[in-house]
């Protein structure tokens, strides 16, 4: 084999070949190692990244449930609007990112092309509104106010508008049936925030980017039920966002409907009458301030006395809740919340608080009874009550001699309550109470009446009001003494003098404090809803109910109805006999007392009404008027700030509300035909088999109708016995107002 050349086998070549072989192996080893690193060691992380890559969610929002009144009339529902939307993924597939299509679309919609372009850009930290903060896979709404003609143009020329859809879509609508507004009770929606999404992520009702969330009122309280559950379809998409498969789909579950105890007609009447009362008050001259009443805010509550269900709740000033639909403009938002606004978003029925004035005397009466005073004891109703150089006067200095507690309540005699409260204060040890617990009947009773804490109504952000008891005084003094002691001067201005006194002994229950307190002046604060709870209990024999607006939650298919039952939360600390006495006394207020001048001609024998007027002093402002009333079935509370006296400001308005409820005309005749709600609505509206709720027709404006029917009452021969209420007597036509005395201490309320 010598002739066989072994030329390829020289040592040099062999060594080099081994080098090549080693090099090759190490290269392959490197690949293997790197492969192991990516797939085995870091595999999970990459798997996660991959799944984020190719799964996209498309959300089909659930139709939000309606809010209905007690008869099924929708207060808040959804209307179908033609929404024109653009699909970003489709637009981005075009050469110019869809700019030409959007420009064409802008022309059809009559919008500036620039606005349309801004609307479809995605929001990020640097992008100001307008921009889209939802999922980029979600169609982006360009307008929800397209006309059918515009929608048709877009749909018929679909090939000219790739990626553009014009679809009818459900948009929230506050229908204002019969012109009722109900704004603060209904609340409003606004888009969900990032924080809320994060917070609700792991709960059983997570938010979606596109969600609208109830921000106040019923929309917020019952948000979870109303919202339903959005349908989520997770699509697998390819690199261009094209759908290549459907991973999972959860069907949308429409939100449940909320049936409330509100009656849209009564609501309208209440709103109308409140507004009218305020308008009239502004024409009235206030002798104390020397100008007309401002009547800048007010509230009215109509509640079923035997259940605590709210039939109407109005707050003034108000606004149109539809401004929130489709996103509120900055200008509108400023109008609602800005410094110069009159804060129409506040529901003053549950968030407005002021001193209760004489309406508080029902509490003081009960306190006196608890403290052991006899109902029929003769308590001196003098024209004034002097204590340590201070003189506390009865309004207009009238005196009635020794009278019973009932009579004191009826004629609203301040000095009777001054005397009782003063005696109790002294019994408790005066300014330096005895060791051990002072009895504090007047304060304890207030707590037992549910004051100083929320009523628990099914509305968010209810305020507590305030009972200025020893504990509160201590806390308040602690928080403020530094500033009081700094600004207080012994011989300074009125404010400085008060600060000086407060600095010295603001933590103590002073005699004047207790005396003031007994007639609902001073630091006491109550809300209209708290008054409704108390007067409702007086009407029904002593049971306090948690006020409720929601009556039932009806699933969208109508199959499950979750009733919200009235909830008794306690009893008034009064025995039945005294309750009866108070009832009679409060009836006396209507027939011959402070409210009588407004209730002349009322068919008291058919529909007995009870009332208590109140006029609360507010430092530096005009007086707040209160009128708390009840019939067998309803309690109506109205308060207007800076409007004078309770009966003066609200008498006609409250009477008109009763007129509407019972169908009473001005001359006292009752016409059942005109009665909106002579007995409370007990049953739920009828639910059809498909889940929709039957709703009766509602008049264009029940308030106007009511006014008309009230005046054009059928003439006499339909013998309705005339009013049992006496013609008003002069001199007692108003709640007691205590003139401001030297040294009287009042906080700004």
């Amino acid at each position, binding site marked *: 084999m010598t002739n066989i050349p072994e030329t390829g*086998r020289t040592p040099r070549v062999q060594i080099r070949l081994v080098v090549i*072989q080693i090099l*090759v192996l190490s290269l392959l080893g*490197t*690949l293997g190692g790197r*492969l192991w690193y*990516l797939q085995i060691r*870091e595999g999970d992380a*990459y798997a996660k990244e991959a799944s984020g890559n190719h799964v996209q969610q498309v959300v089909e929002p659930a139709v939000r449930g309606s809010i209905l009144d007690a008869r099924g009339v929708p207060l808040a529902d959804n209307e179908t609007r033609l929404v024109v939307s653009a699909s970003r993924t489709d637009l981005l597939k075009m050469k110019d990112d869809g700019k030409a299509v959007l420009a064409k679309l802008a022309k059809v919609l009559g919008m500036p092309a620039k606005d349309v372009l801004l609307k479809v850009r995605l929001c990020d930290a640097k992008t100001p509104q307008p921009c889209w903060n939802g999922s980029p896979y979600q169609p982006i709404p360009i307008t929800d106010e397209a006309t059918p003609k515009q929608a048709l143009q877009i749909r018929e020329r679909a090939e000219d508008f790739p990626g553009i859809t014009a679809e009818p879509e459900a948009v929230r609508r506050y229908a204002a049936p019969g012109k009722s507004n109900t704004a603060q009770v209904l609340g409003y929606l606004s888009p969900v925030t990032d924080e809320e999404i994060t917070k609700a992520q792991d709960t059983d009702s997570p938010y979606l980017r596109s969600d609208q969330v109830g921000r106040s009122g019923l929309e917020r309280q019952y948000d979870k039920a109303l919202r339903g559950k959005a349908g989520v379809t997770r699509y697998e998409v390819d690199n261009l966002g094209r759908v290549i498969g459907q991973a999972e789909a959860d069907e949308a579950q429409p939100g449940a409907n909320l049936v409330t105890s509100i009656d849209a007609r009564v609501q309208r009447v209440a709103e109308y009458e409140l507004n009218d009362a305020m308008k009239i008050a502004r024409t009235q001259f206030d002798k104390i301030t020397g100008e007309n009443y401002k009547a800048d805010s007010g509230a009215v509550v109509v509640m079923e006395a035997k259940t605590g269900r709210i039939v109407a709740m109005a707050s003034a000033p108000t606004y149109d809740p539809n401004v929130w639909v489709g996103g509120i403009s900055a200008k509108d938002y400023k109008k609602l919340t800005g410094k110069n606004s009159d804060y129409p978003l506040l529901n003053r029925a549950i968030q407005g608080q002021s001193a209760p004035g004489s309406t508080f005397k029902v509490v003081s009466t009960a306190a006196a009874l608890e403290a052991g005073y006899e109902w029929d004891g003769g308590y001196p109703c003098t024209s004034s009550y002097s204590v340590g150089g201070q003189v506390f006067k009865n309004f207009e200095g009238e005196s009635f001699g020794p009278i019973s507690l009932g009579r004191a309540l009826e004629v609203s005699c301040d000095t009777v309550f001054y005397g009782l409260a003063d005696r109790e204060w002294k019994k408790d040890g005066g300014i330096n109470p005895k060791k051990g617990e002072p009895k504090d009947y007047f304060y304890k009773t207030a707590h037992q009446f549910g004051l100083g804490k929320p009523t628990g109504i099914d509305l968010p952000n209810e305020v507590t009001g305030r009972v200025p008891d020893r504990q509160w005084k201590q806390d308040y003094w602690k928080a403020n003494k530094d500033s009081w002691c700094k600004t207080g001067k012994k011989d300074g201005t009125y404010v400085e003098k008060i600060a000086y006194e407060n600095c010295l002994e603001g933590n103590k229950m002073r005699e004047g404090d207790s005396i003031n307190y007994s007639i609902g002046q001073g630091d006491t604060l109550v809300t209209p809803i708290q008054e409704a709870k108390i007067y409702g209990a007086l009407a029904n024999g002593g049971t306090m109910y948690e006020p409720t607006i929601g009556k039932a939650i009806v699933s969208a298919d109508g199959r499950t109805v979750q009733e919200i039952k009235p909830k008794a939360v306690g009893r008034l600390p009064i025995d039945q006999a005294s309750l009866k006495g108070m009832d009679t006394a409060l009836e006396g207020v209507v027939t011959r007392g402070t409210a009588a001048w407004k209730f002349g001609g009322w068919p008291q024998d058919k529909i007995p009404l009870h009332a208590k007027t109140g006029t609360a002093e507010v430092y530096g402002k005009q007086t707040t008027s209160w009128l708390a009333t009840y019939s067998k079935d309803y309690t109506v509370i109205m308060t207007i700030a800076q409007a004078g006296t309770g009966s003066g400001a609200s008498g006609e308005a409250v009477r008109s509300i009763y007129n509407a409820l019972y169908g009473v005309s001005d001359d006292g005749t009752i016409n059942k035909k005109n009665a909106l709600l002579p007995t409370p609505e007990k049953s739920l509206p009828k639910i059809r088999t498909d889940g929709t709720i039957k709703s009766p027709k509602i008049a264009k404006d029940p308030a106007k109708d009511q006014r008309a029917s009230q005046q054009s009452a059928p003439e006499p021969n339909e013998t309705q016995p005339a009013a049992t209420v006496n013609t008003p007597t002069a001199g007692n036509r108003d709640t007691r107002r205590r003139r401001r005395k030297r040294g009287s201490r009042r906080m700004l309320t």
Partner: protein
Amino acid sequence: MTGANSFQVSGYGPARAGWTRLLARDSLARRLDWPILFSALALSMIGSVLVFSATRNRTEINQGDPYYFLIRHLMNTGIGFALMIGVVWVGHRTLRTAVPLLYGASVFLILLVLTPLGSTVNGAHSWIVLGGGFSLQPSEFVKITIILGMAMLLAARVDAGDKPYPDHRTVLQALGLAAVPMLIVMLMPDLGSVMVMVIIVLGLLLASGASNRWVFGLLGAGTLGAVAVWQLGVLDEYQIARFAAFANPSLDPAGVGYNTNQARIAIGSGGLTGSGLFHGSQTTGQFVPEQQTDFVFTVAGEELGFVGAGLIIVLLGIVLWRACRIARETTELYGTIVAAGIVAWFAFQAFENIGMTLGIMPVTGLPLPFVSYGGSSMFSVWVAVGLLQSIKVQRPMSA
């Protein structure tokens, strides 16, 4: 070893078929390198499945036929296989004589690419579209031409017994022979192919036993050249961007870094056993571009996992290992050089291709031997397998 017998099985003898002859000790069947053949076939088959997976949904390129690429890949493999048989039949020695013809033809073809007949794909002007869905990438054939041509020159005087090693003159001639087509390919510009060719030339020089000075000199020149290319701005913008993205993948995740990021996500998400054939979401979603060609390895990584992707590396390893053995065991320097050239070619191209999908090499448009879709590449690698087989089954020339 009796020469006569081997001549017969090499195809020159009378066609006396039969199992006895096939299984005889010195028969062709016995001497063929079966591991290489088996591995190459397995890689091609795996490739066909991966190509199918990557293209079955891509209606915009598969003309609505999900099997379009699968069928073509199998056809390419078949043609490649036939070419291999042809090469074995003709023998690498005989091909040596055809080098001038082959050289001329391939240089003509790559020149043709520079004319308006050529087309540009992904920034590289390296294709001749033939129509009917077929196109030619002549730079693939140039690799073979360079291997055969340089091996012929470098081995000629050594195999003749004149010299133990190729002298400087021979080396210069050989380099000159390689330089002409390389320059043309660089003009396309198909930088990836040029890189492969440089490595091939290095491998050839190493195996030829040429002086160390040449080897290191060439390495130095290559480095200098790379620096010069970088500095002088010969590179197109897209090429610089690719390198920048390689150095820092997070640089531009939506742009240049997109390929590498998506490729790595695809492979990484495969895990040990992968998501299952046709179930890779990255693949189905077409997140990785060029997935049936340059990034075919990502399909294996995602759908077959570490097991499947590792198998591809192992099969490539078998081919390379056997090729190295062939290089070492052949008796003629010519065969050694050719085999070593093929090793350098396959090894570097596989490392670069898989390495770029794994994020350890910059992105260049090089196919993965046997696996990637592409006729020219498939034909040339199978021709290379034919050359290896021919070297393996060779019997020394009866002088």
